């Protein structure tokens, strides 16, 4: 090792992107005029100069071994002069300047088990989180459900046959690291029982004022248990958000019998046509049923299918529901409407139907 390398380097940030850009991109940076889709997963961007850059997008499980990454690197070398990128939904994109090489690349990717697609009105990758693979908070797994769902939605990834983009996201607890709250379909891990308080250690590992103020509904009160300072949870006021556990390990939420999945629909992020919107509750609870979560898969596929069949061109899922109305959404999907669908948190009143606009 050199003398310089021995010095501890800090606060340098990432390598400058410039080093990693494809030469065609570097040359035409900011000078793109339009794009075309050549096939699902294959885009062509045309620059003012007339130059073209081709993109081949492949689905990824996001959780990648170095072995697979090296295989991607090899493909990039073979087809792209060593250039690739990842997308904001964790797909991998190969950047080519030679249209002729596209088919061969697609073939190799398919052989390696990486489907090409996810563009335009396909279902793209499911943005997701850690689940049982790496997080202490999870009410469910992440990668397993994603795999089970995408196995069944596979053709929706490789074909662009939906009325519009459809974004699925998953978060394994209410912290929502997958930021699922604005997704066409959100799969959200939830608890359904209050924390089980570990009175014996609580005051040792947690700060009581922080703990008490962490509860959005004020359900936590101090209590002395067996002579030790601890807390109690007013069960009626607890809606199982787990925020107390985030600040205090002595409030574990895990409960195999009661943890599970809720399904949310109709959110979006883009400003295209309608403003961004939050996803709304479709199904309050489905059980955790590893390894393939059949109830969850069925629920998601059902919603996708009903949407695909009924929505008009350019209607995102939430825009479709806005047109047909929520009653019809529940009718068409066969999902029961329950007391849980009616908001009762802070702004609940604003979610009531405050007009006589009704479809029969």
């Amino acid at each position, binding site marked *: 090792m050199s003398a310089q390398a021995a010095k501890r380097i800090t606060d340098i940030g990432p390598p400058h992107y410039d080093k990693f850009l494809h030469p065609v991109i570097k040359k035409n940076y900011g000078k793109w005029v339009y794009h075309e889709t050549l096939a699902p997963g294959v885009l062509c961007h045309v620059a003012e100069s007339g130059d073209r850059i081709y993109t081949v997008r492949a689905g990824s499980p996001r959780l990648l071994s170095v072995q697979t990454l090296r295989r991607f690197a090899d493909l990039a070398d073979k087809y792209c002069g060593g250039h690739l990128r990842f997308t904001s939904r964790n797909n991998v994109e190969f950047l080519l300047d030679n249209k002729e090489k596209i088919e061969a690349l697609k073939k190799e990717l398919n052989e390696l088990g990486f489907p090409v697609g996810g563009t335009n009105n396909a279902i793209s990758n499911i943005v997701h989180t850690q689940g049982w693979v790496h997080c202490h908070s999870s009410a469910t797994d992440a990668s397993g459900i994603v795999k089970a769902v995408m196995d069944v939605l596979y053709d929706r990834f490789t074909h662009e046959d939906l009325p519009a983009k459809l974004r699925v996201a998953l978060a394994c607890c209410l912290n929502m690291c997958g930021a699922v709250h604005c997704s066409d379909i959100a799969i959200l891990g939830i608890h359904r029982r209050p924390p089980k308080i570990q009175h014996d250690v609580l005051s040792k590992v947690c700060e009581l004022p922080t703990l008490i103020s962490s509860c959005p509904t004020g359900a936590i009160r101090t209590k002395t248990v067996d002579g030790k300072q601890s807390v109690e949870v007013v069960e009626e006021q607890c809606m199982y958000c787990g925020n107390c556990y985030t600040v205090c390990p002595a409030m574990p939420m895990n409960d195999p019998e009661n943890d599970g999945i809720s399904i949310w629909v109709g959110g979006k992020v883009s400003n295209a046509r309608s403003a961004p919107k939050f996803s709304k509750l479709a199904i309050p609870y489905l059980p955790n049923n590893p390894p393939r979560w059949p109830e969850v898969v069925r629920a998601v596929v059902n919603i996708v299918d009903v949407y695909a069949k009924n929505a008009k061109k350019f209607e995102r899922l939430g825009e479709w529901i806005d047109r047909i109305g929520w009653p019809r959404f529940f009718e068409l999907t066969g999902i029961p409407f329950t007391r849980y669908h009616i908001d009762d948190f802070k702004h609940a009143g604003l979610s009531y139907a405050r007009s006589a*606009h009704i479809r029969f």
Partner: protein
Amino acid sequence: MADDQKPKTKLLDELEKGPWPSFVKEIKQAGEKSPVCDDLLGQLELSYEEKKGHWKHGGIVGVLGYGGGVIGRYSDLPDKFPNVAHFHTMRVNQPAGWFYTSDAIRTLCDIWERHGSGLTNMHGSTGDIIFLGTKTSELEPAFKELTEAGFDLGGSGSAMRTPSCCVGPARCEWSCYDTLKTCDDLTRQYQDEMHRPPFPYKFKIKCSGCPNDCVASIARADLSIIGTWKDDIRQDDAAVAQYARAGLDIRKDVCDRCPTRCMEWDGQKLAINNRECVHCMHCINVMPKALRPGQERGATLLIGSKAPIVQGALLSSVLVPFVPENELMDTLKELIRRIWEFWDEYGNNRERVGELIQRVGMANFLDAIGLDPAPEMVAAPRDNPYIFFQKEEAAAEPEPAGA
């Protein structure tokens, strides 16, 4: 009182000018017979000079056996304006739809000239006939004459208020239920609740025959009854064509303004996708000769609107999406009973029913009054994941049908 004793009303006199009918003229006119009005004018002129009111805070007065129907009012300058030292108003149930004969009007005038200021509001914001200003001693005599003439008092305080209704079937082609009958029936049905305040706070009912809502029920009634229909809009194609020929731009002015864009006009034929119609009335309003509400008629019941105090204004929200006209009165009576029961038990002092629902949550309210949750009740399902699962359900949830 001699003319030169009339109060000087320099500022108010300004309001006798101008084309719009003048309330100052009205007061002066009544003042020709009633000295009360002179003192009213005097005090009002003072208010105009000082930019502040001169009435004292409330005061409970009324007629025998009634807890409501009179608003007590006292001047804070009784020495200066002795004739309005007391100046109470009486709220009188209006006839449904505000229909009168000239005789009825004259009867009311005679009574109020005898026992009050001779000034009225036709009508108050809630809908009552307002007899504006009298003294305590005249309340009972005025009441006696009123009831003898077939009139009765309205509500005030923590009581039911006089329901009101739009002109409805009496003169409107769009009325989807009999607003006058409903309003009249309800007024009669709840005389006791109106006259002997039994509630945590006031309770108002308004009846509109269609979603145009000409009595503003969705904004101003604890219970809003808005007529609507369930089947298809009745459509007369020849008349549609006639509107087009007469120059109406059907695509732009009708189809493009339909909130769900469920109408198509191809230049020849108007096609309505009635399954997606939200019954907003727009197309019917624009083409009254060509389009009419359907024939399966009834009403949507909505709950909870009110003015801003305390927690912000509310609009009523859907409680029962559709009640067929022939079931309306029975449904209303049963529902009102259950709502009042719950409100009685759980409502805080001065908490309107809409505020109570906000506080306890719609789902709990529905439980309490025995209605099932329906997606029509919400603009959208919840967007926050803060669900209070019911104890018995956790650990034993059946898979929902649609899953």
